[in-house]
């Protein structure tokens, strides 16, 4: 079945800092895989599963030199794909494809925000633990 329009919903997913984002170009879905949102995950293994068959892959292959791959969904529903660079970086993601308007994945959270949040938590925990330890020693 050929779908004329797809609506792709879902948040951007990332694992081991291997981030994937996608957008629809006509009936084709284009996925970009990047480390930390910047460096392309080139030639990573890709497996795509259709909503109707979660066991046998609908398509497989590798990302290109720019960390991209594309596929042509032939059914509505949740399409799953797995990207694995075979060096420990792996991400699984699902794209909900429905008839409707074109869409793309939401933007990833700012890297600086993540960095600041992490530092804030570490500094806060360090201060709390230090205060607790210092009070116990007194």
């Amino acid at each position, binding site marked *: 079945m050929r779908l004329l329009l797809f609506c792709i919903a879902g948040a951007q997913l990332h*694992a081991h*800092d291997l981030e994937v984002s996608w957008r629809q170009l006509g009936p084709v879905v284009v996925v970009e895989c990047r480390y930390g949102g910047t*460096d392309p995950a080139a030639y*990573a293994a890709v497996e795509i599963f259709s909503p109707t068959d979660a066991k046998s892959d609908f398509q497989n292959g590798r990302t290109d030199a720019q960390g991209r791959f594309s596929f042509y969904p032939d059914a509505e529903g949740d399409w799953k794909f797995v990207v694995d660079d075979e060096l420990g970086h792996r991400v*699984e993601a699902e794209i909900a494809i429905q008839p409707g308007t074109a869409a793309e994945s939401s933007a990833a959270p700012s890297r600086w925000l*993540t960095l600041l949040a992490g530092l804030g*938590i570490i500094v806060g925990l*360090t201060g709390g633990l230090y205060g607790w330890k210092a009070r116990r020693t007194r």
Partner: protein
Amino acid sequence: MHISDGIFPAGASLVAQAVALGGVGWMGRKIAAEEVVRMGMVSSAVFVVSMVHFPVGGTSIHLGLLGLAGILLGRRSFPVIYATLLFQALLAQHGGLLALGINALNMGAGTLLAAAIWRMSRIPESARSFACGFFATMLPASLMAIEFWAAGYGKGFGVIAIAYSAVGLIEGALTTFIVGYLRRVKPAVLARIPQPAVAVRAAA
């Protein structure tokens, strides 16, 4: 070096998690207040430096400062690495939550090796610093390669060895520079902090 979830079986990951938590409990006993500040600083440095990536041959590598963590913290580096990896997994999806135990054991082994090398006082300090940075990177990389081989996963030992040898050399040079700088401006940071039990005996 931060392995994602879904690569190793859940059972193996859970066993590794239990062993890692045991290590955290054992090596995190009786922490002195003075140690907490140093642990927090090292954790912050490791967290920040791990977020900076470099593209290498289609993959991405980053520094870890594992050698420096071993030098500055000794056995306390293990709980610090565990906690830092937990924050990285939760905030940046850098490494899997289920694989946290495996990652902590791999990298914690690197920091403990660095701590052991640092104690070899017969070796000149600059050579020791370099060895700490280099081997604290190469040991976790080797463990990861062995684990990948055991799981029948990945591109093989050669690719990992090439990628992480470059990281190891950079880590070695960076650790040597930082230790040299600390030796000049604040050598007390490089000394071990007395443990609570030792401090009580000394006071008595």
